[in-house]
C-alpha cells in the first residue's frame, strides 16, 4: 500500500510536467490547428535557460529558485513568439500540412543548434530549491516534488483565469472557434496567436525547470521524449481542450509510473504510445474532447 502511494506521488509529479507541456500543444492547436513539434525544444530551452540563470541568481532558496523559474519562463515566452513569427507566420493561409512539416524542421533545427551551442554532452542541473525530505507514514515526499505540485497548481489556476476571465483569453477562445468572425469583431488575430505561443512556451519552460529539478541531467535532445509524451497527453485529453491537456498529462504520468512500478520498466517509453494507439482507436476525440456540433 505504501509502495502504491509512493508511486502515486511520483506519477503525479511526472504527470504535472507532462500537463505543463501538453497545454502548449493544445493551445497552439486551438488557434492554428496544427501540432507545433518545436514545442519539445522550447521545453529543453527552458531547462537550459534555468541552468545558465542559476549562475547569475543565487539559488538554493525558494525565492532564488522561483526567480530562476520566472526568468526561464520569460525567455521561453520570447523564444516561442520568435519561432511563430519567423517560421509559422509567413505560412499563414497555407495548408496545415505545410505548417506541420515546418514545425518538424524547426524542432530539428533547434536540437542541432542546441548541440552546437551547448555541446552534446549532458550537464548536471543545479539544485534550485532547498532540498528536504518529508516522511508521511512511509511515503517520502521531496521538497522538489512539493514545489513542483505547488508551482503547477498555481500555473494551472493562473492559466484558467487568463483563458476564462480576461479579454485576451476570451479572444483566444473566440479565435479558436472562428478566426474570420474574430477578425470581424476587431481582434488582431496575429497578436492573439503571439500571446498564445508566449503562454504555452512559458508553461513548457516551467515544465523544463521542474523536470530538470527531478531528473537533474540536461542535454539538447532531452525534449524529444517528454515532448512526444506530452503530445500524447494532449491527444488523450482531447486536442484543443485546455482542461483535457492537464488531465491527459496527469493520467499519462500515473499510467507510466505504475507500469514501471509493476516491473515493466523496459516498456516505460512504450506506454505513452500504446495509450496513443488505444485512444485513436477507441476515443479519437480524447477524454474531454467532443465533436463540435454547430447549429446552422
Amino acid at each position, binding site marked *: 500500500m505504501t509502495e502504491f502511494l509512493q508511486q502515486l506521488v511520483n506519477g503525479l509529479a511526472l504527470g504535472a510536467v507532462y500537463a505543463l507541456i501538453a497545454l502548449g500543444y493544445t493551445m497552439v492547436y486551438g488557434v492554428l490547428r496544427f501540432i507545433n513539434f518545436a514545442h519539445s525544444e522550447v521545453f529543453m530551452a527552458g531547462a537550459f535557460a534555468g541552468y545558465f540563470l542559476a549562475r547569475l541568481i543565487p539559488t538554493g532558496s525558494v525565492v532564488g529558485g522561483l526567480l530562476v523559474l520566472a526568468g526561464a519562463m520569460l525567455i521561453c515566452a520570447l523564444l516561442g513568439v520568435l519561432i511563430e513569427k519567423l517560421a509559422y507566420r509567413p505560412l499563414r493561409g497555407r495548408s496545415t500540412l505545410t505548417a506541420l512539416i515546418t514545425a518538424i524542421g524547426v524542432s530539428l533545427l533547434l536540437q542541432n543548434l542546441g548541440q552546437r551551442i551547448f555541446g552534446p554532452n549532458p550537464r548536471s542541473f543545479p539544485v534550485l530549491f532547498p532540498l528536504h525530505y518529508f516522511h508521511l507514514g512511509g511515503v517520502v515526499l521531496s521538497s522538489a516534488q512539493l514545489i513542483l505540485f505547488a508551482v503547477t497548481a498555481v500555473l494551472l489556476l493562473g492559466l484558467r483565469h487568463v483563458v476564462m476571465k480576461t*479579454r485576451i483569453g*476570451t*479572444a483566444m*477562445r*473566440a479565435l*479558436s*472557434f*472562428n478566426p*474570420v*468572425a*474574430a*477578425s*470581424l*469583431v*476587431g*481582434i*488582431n*488575430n496575429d497578436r492573439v496567436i503571439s500571446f498564445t505561443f508566449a503562454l504555452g512556451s512559458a508553461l513548457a519552460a516551467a515544465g523544463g525547470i521542474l523536470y530538470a529539478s527531478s531528473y537533474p541531467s540536461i542535454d539538447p535532445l532531452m525534449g524529444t521524449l517528454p515532448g512526444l509524451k506530452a503530445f500524447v497527453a494532449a491527444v488523450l485529453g482531447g486536442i484543443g481542450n485546455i482542461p483535457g491537456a492537464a488531465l491527459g498529462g496527469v493520467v499519462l504520468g500515473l499510467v507510466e509510473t505504475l507500469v514501471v512500478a509493476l516491473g515493466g520498466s523496459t516498456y516505460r517509453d512504450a506506454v505513452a504510445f500504446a495509450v496513443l494507439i488505444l485512444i485513436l482507436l477507441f476515443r479519437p476525440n480524447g477524454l474531454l474532447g467532443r465533436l*463540435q*456540433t*454547430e*447549429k*446552422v
Partner: protein
Amino acid sequence: MLEVERLSVRYGAVQALHEVSLSIEEGAIVTLIGSNGAGKSTTLRAISGLLRPAGGTIRYCGERIDRLPAHAIVGRGLSQVPEGRMVFANLSVRENLQMGAYLQRDRALVQRELERVFSLFPRLQEREQQVAGTLSGGEQQMLAIGRALMSRPKFLMMDEPSLGIAPLLVATIFEKIVEINRSHGITVLLVEQNANLALDISSHGYVLETGRVILHDRSAALRADERVRSAYLGA
C-alpha cells in the same frame, strides 16, 4: 460615406467581381440583391478587409481602406454581420457581446452599449449566461447583430440576415434593422436573397449578376423594373 470604385476580386483563376462600383450615403439603407454566386458576399468581404481586391478602391469617409487588415476596418467604424451568423458558439451570449466591443477599452461605454443591445433584443438579456451554440437560429441572428453593434459602428453591413430563420422572426429582424438605422443613425448595407423585403426597407438598391452591377436605382424604381420583377420578385 462609402465609395467603392471599380472593385475587382479574384479567387485564384476565377474572377468573382468585375469593376463593381457602389456609392452609399450616410444615413441610408442600401441593398445589394442578386442570385446565389452573384458576388454579394464577396463585395461585403472585400469591404470588411477579409479579401484583398485585385483592383479598384474602397473609400470610407474619404480614406482608402482597401489595404487595411480586417480588425483595423472595424476600428474605423465599419462592422459586418456575416453570412451564417458566425456567433462564437463556445462562448456565452455575454462574452460574444463583449468580444463585439473588443476594441473598446472604456468599460463604462461597453456597459452602456450592452444595455442598448439588450433593450433592442430583450431575448439576449434573458439568455445572457447561456452558451451561444445552444440558441435558436433567430436568437443567434439577434446575437450576431448585437455583437456587430457593440463596436459602435457608423456603417453596418448585413449578409443574408433572413437566411435559415423562422418566417415569424424574419419580420422582427427586419423591423430591428430599420430601428437600428433610424434611431441609432447607422448606415446599413444589406445583402439579401429575399429581394421583396430588402427593397421594402431600403432607399436604394444595386442588382448584381455574375460579379457585375447590372442595375442600380431607387428601391421603388427597382420594384417596378420588369427585369427585377421577373428575376427576383417572382412576379
